[in-house]
């Protein structure tokens, strides 16, 4: 915090911004201001309109009405180019980097220099200089795909600085980082404002906001519920109320339960990623009935591959047994028959078929079983009834069960997947990022469903990047780093700091 005087001039003034997407009012007369040399935090749930508002400021969307002033001058951006020219730089949550180009090439992308022939060596040096000024180290000749997530983020920031950005928008920059990397990022942010830059910091974590932000604006359902307030002294409950509009219980009730028989046994499991490089190395663990085993880690450390290996979607070395039956290197169907439920990370890419009806999506795992199928044919009447029942029980919001899956919101899509996976009373549930991108109400519901299944005796493998969620739901927690499990502990004895260090590979508990 820099404690700026009240009369510091504004770098950005956005007034009465309205933007409408088919069926939603994404920004409903939103006001937002940013002072020079300030860090202004923007909070809100997914879908509250934060990214939309920032996309307006960065020229990606044109508002229906409202005015924007930069340094007091009214502006109207037709494209990102205009915003860049006005000194606005956006660091997107999903990095806007071309993986096959080098750091320097990515930074130069879209500029009018060099004229025609790329003189990369010259520009590598220029970028080296820029890095030194702001303390952002990264090899300019490296290709993006070779960099860690933290390094990629630095490239994104460098990209905006190279363009002479005075106003930086950081869209949920901490979401992809480990705790230690978050500290580094905050240090960078402080360096930047000390050199006269202004920063808009999008987040949904109060502790981060209180650590760096001068002021705070909260959006809910496209409207501002707090405009430029002081974040100090705000409690978590107050903030949650501003974001959600009602009181939120942070602790889902979890009952003590003695674990039973071993359900999942993973032994010396190794597998490779899509490029054929090792992604999971020699991993072993067990999960018992009525137990939730959580795996923490920064995205891209082998979690996706581990899940695919365990669920039979990826060839492996080693062994995976469900209730004593070997399922590794067999068909996914064998795992399903052994009682596996899989809540995949990618709801639209893997979990559902977007252009098929809810019914057809719900029968995905049991279409070949009685009563939906007897022999070669499918009884669509039975399928319809089954789908209608689950729609009712799991409260899937849609006009009918004939609605196409792609018309569902993220939360409803996840309910559909859960309904399908859980309704068969599975022995083993593998859930990856089950609450990502959902709003608070939906998150609570899904966490409760998982705990219910634990109570019923399912073994659950939970993989998440949300440490809080893992700590709250799991019985045991392990950390994955570079494809290896580097530590395991009971959730009740877990230390956040220790887990954080394991996530970056700085520490491992088993030598």
């Amino acid at each position, binding site marked *: 915090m820099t404690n700026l005087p009240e009369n510091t001039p504004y770098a950005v003034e956005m007034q009465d911004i309205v933007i409408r997407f*088919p069926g939603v009012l994404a920004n409903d007369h939103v006001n937002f201001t940013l002072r020079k040399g300030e860090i202004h935090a923007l909070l809100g749930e997914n879908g509250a309109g934060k990214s939309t508002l920032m996309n307006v400021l960065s020229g990606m969307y044109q508002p229906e009405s409202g005015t924007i002033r930069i340094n007091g001058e009214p502006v109207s951006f037709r494209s990102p180019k205009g915003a860049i020219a006005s000194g606005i730089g956006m660091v997107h949550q999903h990095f806007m980097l071309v993986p096959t180009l080098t750091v320097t090439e990515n930074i130069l992308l879209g500029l009018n220099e060099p004229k025609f022939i790329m003189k990369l060596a010259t520009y590598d040096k220029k970028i080296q200089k820029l890095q030194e000024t702001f303390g952002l180290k990264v090899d300019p000749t490296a290709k993006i795909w070779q960099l860690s997530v933290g390094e990629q983020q630095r490239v994104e920031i460098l990209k905006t600085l190279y363009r002479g950005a005075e106003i930086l928008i950081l869209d949920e920059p901490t979401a992809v980082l480990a705790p230690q990397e978050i500290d580094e990022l905050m240090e960078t942010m402080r360096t930047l404002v000390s050199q006269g830059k202004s920063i808009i910091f999008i987040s949904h974590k109060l502790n981060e906001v209180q650590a760096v932000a001068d002021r705070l604006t909260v959006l809910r359902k496209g409207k501002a519920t707090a405009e430029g307030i002081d974040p100090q002294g705000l409690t978590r409950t107050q903030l949650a109320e501003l974001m959600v509009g009602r009181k939120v219980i942070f602790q889902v009730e979890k009952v003590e339960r003695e674990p039973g028989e071993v359900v999942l046994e993973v032994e010396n499991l190794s597998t490779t990623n899509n490029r054929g490089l090792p992604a999971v190395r020699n991993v072993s663990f067990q999960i018992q009935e009525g137990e939730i085993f959580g795996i923490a880690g920064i995205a891209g450390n082998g979690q996706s591959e581990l899940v695919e290996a365990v669920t039979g979607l990826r060839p492996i070395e080693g062994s995976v047994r469900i209730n004593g039956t070997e399922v590794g290197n067999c068909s996914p169907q064998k795992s399903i028959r052994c009682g596996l439920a899989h809540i995949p990370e990618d709801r639209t890419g893997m979990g559902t078929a*977007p252009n098929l009806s809810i019914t057809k999506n719900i029968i995905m795992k049991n279409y070949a079983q009685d009563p939906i199928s007897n022999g070669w044919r499918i009884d669509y009447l039975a399928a319809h009834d089954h789908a209608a029942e689950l729609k009712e029980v799991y409260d899937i919001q849609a006009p009918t069960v004939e609605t196409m899956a792609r018309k569902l919101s993220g939360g409803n899509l996840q309910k559909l997947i859960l309904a399908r996976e859980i309704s068969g009373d599975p022995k083993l549930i593998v859930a990856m990022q089950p609450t990502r991108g959902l709003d608070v109400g939906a998150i609570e519901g899904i966490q409760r469903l998982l705990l219910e299944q634990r109570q019923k005796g399912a073994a659950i493998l939970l993989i998440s990047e949300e440490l809080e969620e893992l700590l709250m739901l799991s019985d045991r927690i392990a950390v994955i780093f570079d494809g290896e499990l580097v530590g395991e502990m009971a959730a009740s004895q877990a230390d956040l700091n220790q887990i954080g260090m394991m996530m970056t590979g700085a520490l491992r508990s088993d030598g």
Partner: protein
Amino acid sequence: MKFPYKIKFESRTNDVPKWLPLATSLGAVVVAFIISGIVLWLIGGNPFQVYRYFFTASFGSWGAFSDILVKATPLILIGLGCSVAFKMNILNIGAEGQFYIGAFFASMVVLVPIIPLDSPKWLVLTLMALMGILGGALYGFIPGFLKAVFNVNEIITTLMLNYIAIFWNNYWIFGKYSDAGFQMTPTFDKVAWLPRLADLAKDYPFFSGITLHLGVVFGLVAAVLIWVILKRSRWGYEIALIGDNPKAANYAGINIKKNIILVMMLSGALAGLAGMSEVTGVVHRLQERISTNYGFSGVIVAWLAKLNPFAVIPVAILFGALIVAGREIQPSGLSFMIQGTILFLVISSDVFLRYKVRIVRTHQEEMA
């Protein structure tokens, strides 16, 4: 000065009205005729005259209409085969080759001969049909296998196989079974002729000269069969799931590789049966150019019918008419151009199914 209106695409939030797919298909056909008419006029033709001739040449008499149904028969079978494959997002453009290989396999029954030619007619024809199906299925297996195992683009492999199939047939009709040096085999024994309506002319003079043969029944039966597979069977569900999202299908425990091969074989089998029907029902021998681009027209038929097995039938008849008329009018490429334009427009018109297209006033702010 900026144009005060602009076209706006909004993604549909509600379901597509039931009538819209039909309307877009019909619209595509009408617009294709208009565009082709304009091209015709630009190069100095008289589109009205051509189209009038077009109509009389195809729907003018019972004989002409029967000719259309004869041409529509292979198109129904091939269109159905394409529909199944396209439903799974496998773009089998190789019906032409599968047609030729089916015709070749069927012909071998009487050319080799595989069974004595004094066998009963039903036996000879059944065996020929089975051989046609086998030949097409085997020829569909190749690209299916390459796609499933090596992930090779099936469009290019099936196209290359089309060329290869034609050279293959040429070898046999020029080399082995040539009829006195002509590029065709001798006419088949009557036992290998599919029954025609004209065969009944002795009792029902009305049928005299009507060339419609039993092959059309193959087409109708196949349509019912494919409808049952796609709409009512487990396999059809798997095909739809793989077609919409292969990753989801794999996650649901469906064996995608197996299905790619099977669907390619089914698709090829239907084209192979079409080849058999054509050599036994129409030309009565194996020769060059037994197909007037049926393989490609079949692709368009499938798209225009929106992959609906029953819609394939009327669309195939329309295309049969195009082919019949196309034989007799100049310029000879016209029916091909109309077909190409239809397909292009059908694909473009899909935009109406995905978006609501509206013309709106541009905003005041933007004009300022």
